[in-house]
């Protein structure tokens, strides 16, 4: 599904450029030839195979993949919940398996937020704070930040899925970690809650300098919030790109013109042009280029007395990119 957007959005461009520049910094988290094989009743299952990934600081990094692709396994390896068969997870160059401090500088929300149902939200967070040796006094502030201000003394068993997810977010933020790993953070949230969560995550990155790594199945959400994405499929990273590159690399313009075939022959020496729909002499041209070329194309057409009725910039959506990446991998197999 292609998405329409304005030809040029200076604020968006500035934000993307800033993210790109930030992306050139030393990686905060690295996966170095990471592999994991599980042994079970059905034999050995290779969940992850030689995964290499470097995640730069101060950005939202999207981690995508179909069910069973290895996303959760990777996240668990990052948190030292499971042991790699080979390879390392490095936090600022330090192996998380050899340094407790390295793991403790990562806040995480793994799959469904898990809490003690019989305890209140405040008690759950206090317990986690004590377990990590953090100050318990930060708990009320964190609960307010995630919108659970009035519910701190309610038992978690009374919470909705969305409230538990918010509590999970607060738990991840305990101790003000440098990196946040969030597995499906918008799970169970209503549209307003999802919007709030997006803004909150963006604020954490832009204003508080955090690095957020999130996995999600909601690709439109990922596209809206992430600076970079990696697609994992069958235990391997199959694509990694910035969202900006993704947009620019697969952009095209659609122009409604008359006469369409004359317009195509005018533009074809300079651009890759396809004639799409034609009704008599009126029709659509699909030009493989980004919106930066729009003025030149327009000038070229007008100089040849071609009528231009509409012009749209279109981009490949993340969903298309995702499907292409995962389908290509299947075909290769």
């Amino acid at each position, binding site marked *: 599904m292609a998405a329409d957007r304005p030809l040029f959005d200076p604020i968006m461009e500035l934000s993307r450029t800033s993210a790109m520049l930030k992306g050139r910094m030393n990686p905060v988290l690295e996966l170095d030839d990471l592999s994991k094989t599980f042994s079970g009743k059905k034999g050995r299952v290779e969940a992850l195979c030689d995964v290499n990934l470097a995640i730069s600081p101060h950005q939202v990094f999207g981690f995508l993949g179909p069910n069973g692709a290895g996303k959760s396994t990777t996240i668990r390896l990052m948190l030292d919940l499971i042991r790699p068969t080979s390879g390392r997870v490095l936090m600022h160059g330090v192996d998380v398996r050899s340094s407790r401090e390295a793991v403790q500088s990562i806040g995480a929300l793994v799959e469904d937020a898990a809490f003690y149902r019989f*305890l209140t939200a405040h008690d759950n967070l206090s317990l986690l704070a004590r*377990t990590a040796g953090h100050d318990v006094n930060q708990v009320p502030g964190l609960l307010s930040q995630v919108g659970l201000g009035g519910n701190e003394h309610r038992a978690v068993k009374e919470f909705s899925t969305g409230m538990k997810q918010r509590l999970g977010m607060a738990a991840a933020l305990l101790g003000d970690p440098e990196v946040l790993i969030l597995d499906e953070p918008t799970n169970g949230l209503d549209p307003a809650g999802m919007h709030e969560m997006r803004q909150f995550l963006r604020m954490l990155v832009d204003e508080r300098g955090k690095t957020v790594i999130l996995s999600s199945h909601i690709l439109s959400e990922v596209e809206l919030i992430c600076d970079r994405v990696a697609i994992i499929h069958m235990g391997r990273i199959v694509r990694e790109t910035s969202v900006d590159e993704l947009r620019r690399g697969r952009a095209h313009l659609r122009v409604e013109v008359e006469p369409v075939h004359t317009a195509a022959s005018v533009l074809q020496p300079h651009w890759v042009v396809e004639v799409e729909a034609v009704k008599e002499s009126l029709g659509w041209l699909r030009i493989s280029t980004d919106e930066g070329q729009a003025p030149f194309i327009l000038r070229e057409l007008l100089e040849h007395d071609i009528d231009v009725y509409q012009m749209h910039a279109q981009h490949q959506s993340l969903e298309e990119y995702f499907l292409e990446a995962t389908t290509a991998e299947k075909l290769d197999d």
Partner: protein
Amino acid sequence: MINLLRAEWKKLVGNRMLAGFTIWLYPVGLFAFILVMGVIFVFGGDVGAELGSSWEGPMLTTWNLVTRFPNASIGRLPLLAFMAVMVAGEYEWGTWKSLVPRSARWKLLLAKMLAMALILVFSIGLTSLISGPFRYTFSTILGVETAPGLPSAERVTFYQAYVLETLLAFIQSMYLACFASLSALLTRTIVGSLLLSFGLSMLEMLSPILLMLLSRILVRPGMVNAYAYFPSYLIDNLRSWVLHAQPVYTGFPDFSNDMGAGATVLLLTVLLCGFGLLCIWLFQRQDITN
């Protein structure tokens, strides 16, 4: 570590429903029982002998719920159930994944085992206070004829014995915590952990009988001496050495392993550390996948 212990304590006590039916069963049950006895007495029932008995004896024997056969064979069950649920529950509730990245695994498990043992000792200690001083005071208020207390010359011995029983109960509770942890680590389910920890506890307690049977079947009488390497024997033997300066008399035919006090303490420590380290080693290597 203090923070971890506080966190574990909060978690253990916070599960009110489970704690109410397991670890608080003895103090609350006994408290209610004494109140009912008091009501029966007030309405003319013949319960004066039970209510007015001396307070020192019941205070000591309460600890048998954990440490001595046959009381402990049933007495331990609710306590073991509590511990099994609290360790295996972390797997079923999926809460390990929130805790493990925040603290070293060995610390987490050790804090859990210590907190569980302490809460058990606290619960049995509370029960012993209810069975002794509370009952005695309550009887006096009701006007029940009470038995005379120990002569002051014997008080010191009583206090020493009480401290010893508390210490032995703590050691036994640590063993139970190890059984529960080991069962939870191996099965990762509450039901599996309950069954396995009950099984381990019963096996340990009935080990002399099983060893006797086995020695008869295999015609190897010396086999029964292996009982000397089980925590139940070591705890009984330590008690006997401290109180009577001699090894415990088990009464089992063919049993002839009269272990000295030093060896008993050493073996008790080595076994406990061994069990604890085994649990920690298993947990350290385990993948937390749920």
